Each structure stands twice: as C-alpha cells, then as structure tokens.
C-alpha cells in the first residue's frame, strides 16, 4: 500500500501524521482534559507508520471522522479553542482529503464500483466544509451575528420549519415556478418565431444580448412598481431573467442541425413544420436544456432579489432582508440553506430530465460515437 501513494498523497499523509505527533506532544501537559482528542492525536501519529506498513485508506476515513468528532466534542462553550486543537483540525482535514484522494484512485482503478461510492466523495467534501465552518466559528468565537455555526443554523432550521415552508411556498411555488415556465416558454416561442425571419433575427439578437446584460437588480424595483407587491412582480422578474438565456440558446440550438441533416430534409421536400419538428427542435435539445439549467438557478435568485423591494410579509427574500435587520442571522442562513437546497434540487431535476430526453447526445451517452 505504501508504495502506491502519489506525491500529493504523501504530503497529505505527512501533514496529517505530523500534526498528530505535534498535537500529541502539546496535549501531554493537559493530559486527561480531552481524552477523545488525545486518542485522535495518538492514532494520527501512529498513521506515520504507513511509510513502512500497509495502511488502508478506510483507516484514513475513520481517522477523519474521529478527528471531526473529537473536535466538535471538545469545542469550548465559551472563549477560544486551545491552540493545539487547531492541529487536530488540520490533521482531520488532511485525513479527509487523503481519504477521498485514495478513494478516487481506487474507483478509477476499478477496485470499487462507480455508483454509490462516486456519490460519497462530494458528500465528504461538503461535510468537511461544514465541520471546518463549525469548528472555526465556534473555536474562534466568531460572533453569531456575523456568521453563525452550522449547528446553530440547523437548530434554527428545525425550529422554524413552519416559517420556512410558508416562505418556500410563497417564493418558490408561487413566484419561481410560474415565472420560470412563462419565461422559458416565451423565450422558446420567440426564438422559433425569430428564427424564421433572418431580418427579425438580425434585429433582435443584438438587442437581446444587450438586454440580457441588464442588471436584473435594477429591474426588480420597477417590476414591483408595475406589478404590485405580491408574487406577480416576483414572477415578472423571473420571466425577465429567464427569457433571454432561453432565447439566445434556442436560436443557437436551432442552427445546430448540420447542413447535411437539413439537406436531407430538403431532398424529401419536407415542409418548414416538418423540418422544425423532426430535425431542428430535437437537434436544439441540448441547447434548450442548457438554458433550462442556467435558468433554474437564475429564477430563484431573481425572485429573492425582487422580494427585497417590497412584499407581503412572507417569502424567502423578505425573511432574509428582515432577518438581517433584526440580526436573526441564523434564520437568514436557514433561508439561504433552503434556497441552496431548492436551487440544487431544481437544477438536479432538470439535469435528470435532460439525461432522459437528450440521451442520444455524445455528452450524455459518454462520448463514444
């Protein structure tokens, strides 16, 4: 095993083990204060034996978890974390990195199956970030008014599910979904209309590009002025945000069919409609999905911004802006978490549909022609 470490892995192993050794030394004066931490330091130091003995990467994973556990368990209720505990953070992180590094290598070498384990790596990375966040905010006594710890956010999240759900319904279900659907469908239809007339295309595309550069933040107060305080103005902002990406992508996509594919239609004396339905729209599929994916993240952001400029007293943007005003920063982060989860899920759903619909595209079927 020790032979198979890459340069990067070797450095990580040295950092992890070295920090363990140093931490062990630094813990001796206060021995017994944090037994879990002591164990972690000791085993970390032991891991240096990997230079001469085989050391499974699963052990690295276990050590990363042990380190995170020890750190969180020994976080002080008040004041700063003891200096040598920061070594545990570095060591634990190095173990996590080393673990994913070696796990990825094992998957690549075919020693582990792709499915399942492939998902573990991004998850570990995310968890590592959260642990670092937790330890740094609490260990360095960062004011919760500036950046609350993930545990505080989670607690608030659990305690406020009612509010969060109501806000989610107002913003996502009432504003984002209708706005997204209208914006995307309108962009698609206008693209098809524009595509038929080279004159319109030549006229609209430069202006479309100009409009898509408009900072939507500026549109939001105008839309609130035009469409009122409720979800309609938010949906309007979402429509404005999603329309142009869809327009530009679809126009490009409708040109994606190759000359020879079009000539083929021509040899059948196919009508415009037939060519559109049987060739150009399917060929535009990947482009249309590209816009749908871009729009899935834009839409939520647009609705939230618009809520900064006037809303009924519900909605994710409302909660975030008043939350900052009231210094309920943990609630603000809970809302941000909802936004990130909803946005990622939305994106993921679109990406899944894309895999199903454009199964034939090289980027989906894995590149082999």
């Amino acid at each position, binding site marked *: 095993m020790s032979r198979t470490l890459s340069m990067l892995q070797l450095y990580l192993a040295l950092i992890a083990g070295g920090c363990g050794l140093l931490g062990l030394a630094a813990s001796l004066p206060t021995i017994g204060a944090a037994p879990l931490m002591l164990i972690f330091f000791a085993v970390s130091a032991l891991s240096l034996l990997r230079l001469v003995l085989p050391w499974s990467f699963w052990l690295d994973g276990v050590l990363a978890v042990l380190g995170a556990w020890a750190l969180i368990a020994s976080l002080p209720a008040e004041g700063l974390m003891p200096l040598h505990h920061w070594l545990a953070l570095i060591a634990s992180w190095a173990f996590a990195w080393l673990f994913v590094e070696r796990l990825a290598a094992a998957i690549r070498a075919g020693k582990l199956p792709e499915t399942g384990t492939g998902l573990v790596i991004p998850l570990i990375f995310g968890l590592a970030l959260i642990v670092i966040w937790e330890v740094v905010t609490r260990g360095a006594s960062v004011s919760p008014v500036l950046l609350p710890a993930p545990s505080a956010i989670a607690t608030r999240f659990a305690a406020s599910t009612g509010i969060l759900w109501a806000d989610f319904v107002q913003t996502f279900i009432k504003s984002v979904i209708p706005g997204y659907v209208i914006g995307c469908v309108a962009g698609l239809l206008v693209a098809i209309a524009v595509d038929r007339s080279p004159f319109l295309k030549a006229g609209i595309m430069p202006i479309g590009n100009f409009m898509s550069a408009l900072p939507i933040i500026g549109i939001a107060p105008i839309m609130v002025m035009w469409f009122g305080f409720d979800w309609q103005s938010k949906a309007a902002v979402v429509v404005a945000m999603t329309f142009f990406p869809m327009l530009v992508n679809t126009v490009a996509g409708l040109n994606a069919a190759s000359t020879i594919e079009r000539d*083929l239609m*021509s*040899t*059948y004396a196919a009508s415009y409609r037939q060519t559109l339905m049987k*060739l150009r729209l*399917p060929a535009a599929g990947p482009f249309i999905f590209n816009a749908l994916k871009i729009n899935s993240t834009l839409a939520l952001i647009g609705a939230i911004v618009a809520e900064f400029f006037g809303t009924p007293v519900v909605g994710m943007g409302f909660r975030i802006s008043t939350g900052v005003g009231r210094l309920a920063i943990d609630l603000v982060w809970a809302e941000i978490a909802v936004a990130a989860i909803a946005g990622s899920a939305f994106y993921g759903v679109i990406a899944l549909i894309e895999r199903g619909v454009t199964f034939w595209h*090289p980027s989906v*079927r894995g590149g082999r022609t």
Partner: protein
Amino acid sequence: MDGRTTAVVEASSLGLTFPAGDGDIVALSDVNLTIDKGEFVSFIGPSGCGKTTFLRAIADLEKPTSGTLTVNGQTPENARKDRAYGYVFQAAALYPWRTIEDNVALPLEIMGYGSADRAERVRRTLALVNLSGFEKKYPWQLSGGMQQRASIARALSFDADLLLMDEPFGALDEIVRDHLNSELLKLWARTEKTICFVTHSIPEAVYLSTKIVVMSPRPGRVTDVIVSTLPRERPLDIRETPEFLEIAARVRDGLRAGHSYEEVV
C-alpha cells in the same frame, strides 16, 4: 413522368460558381451530360472536382449559375418537390435521436405514408441492406458500415426512380464493399432504377457502371465519358477479365490526365 424523352437527367453547358471572398470558385463549368432511364452512371475524379456539387445540383441542393439542367424533364426544384429521387450522402447523416427503423421511416413520415405501409417498407428495406434485427438500435450503437447501410435503406424506402449516391461505400472495407456492390447491382437490375454514383475507386466504378463520367478539377469539367462494354450480369470475378482491366486502364488514364499532382492533392 416518363414523358416524351427517356432522359432522366439532362445537363447542357451547366456551370456552377460559388461566390467566395477572394475570387469565386468555379465548381462546375460547361458540363454537358445526358443520363437515360435505367442507366448506372459513376462519377470519378480527384477530390474537389465537383462530383458532389453536380449531384447536389441535380437534387436541387445547389442552384446552377449558368446553362440548363432538367430532371425528369422538369426543373430540379419541381423534381425535388415531386420526390423524384433518393439521396445517399457521403456521411450517413442519421438522426441520433431516432432508432434505425425510425430513421428509415423518416422520409415515409414526411411523405405521409400510412403507418402499416411504413412498417412494411421499413422491414423490407432493412432486410435488403442486411440490417434486420437492428431496428431498435440507435445509430451510435452501430458501426460506421452499418450506419452507411441504414442511410442507403432510408434512401430506398420510398422507391424513388432516381438514386443519387455520393461515395456511399467510402468508409467500408473491401469485403463489405464487394458485398454491397453486388447487392446494389442486383437491386438495380431488379428495379430498373436510374443510379448516379460517386466514387474514388476505379474498380468500383468500372464494376458497377453502364457509363463512367471522368471529371477534372479547377474548374470542374467532364473530361471523359466512358460507356461500359461489360454485360449487365456481372459476377465479382469479372474484375479479373481483360475487358474490365482495359476499361479500368482507360479510366485511370483519363483521371491522370486531369490530375496534375502538385496542385491538387
């Protein structure tokens, strides 16, 4: 359709020039050629001599810039709208989102064939090109040769009397090519179609054709039209007969004449 004349394609003083930034490209100049019903005409010539362009002009995919061109006695445009021909492109040009059978059915859908008729024709043409059993596969799941055969099936499915084939067997190995050549000959003999066939291979041209059109580039001209003296019935080993070799030698000479090596490649 087969009105007062049996000429399927008739070109006289045909010219076709592509406008280009730095001087126009003359792809065809003063081409005079008559193709009669039931003929199998091969076009051969160095790269860039205008073979594809000529076929595309017949198919109304390019507009001639001078001279006249008629297809079935009409303008190429009207012939195209009459669905007078099937075209096999140099690349298979199958739609990747359709299965093989749906690709073959594509022209039938567009031309409004009923679904039972469609299924029957797809079955028959796929069998003809030896692709039975691959109906439900997608193009990218097939080898290049199979794709090419599917594209031939697609062009055959709606039974046009004129077949335009642009290097259909270019990507295939010799054995497969031999096989398809004889299949094509059988099909032609059976159906009395008129076939225009572009190839780079001299033996292929000689083996298949009743008439071989040799072209030369810059500008694209017809330098020789060789009428084959081979019988219609052609076993594969006809290719070792002196008659065959003699025609092949004539084609090669014609080709070489139009081929100043340095400038073409």
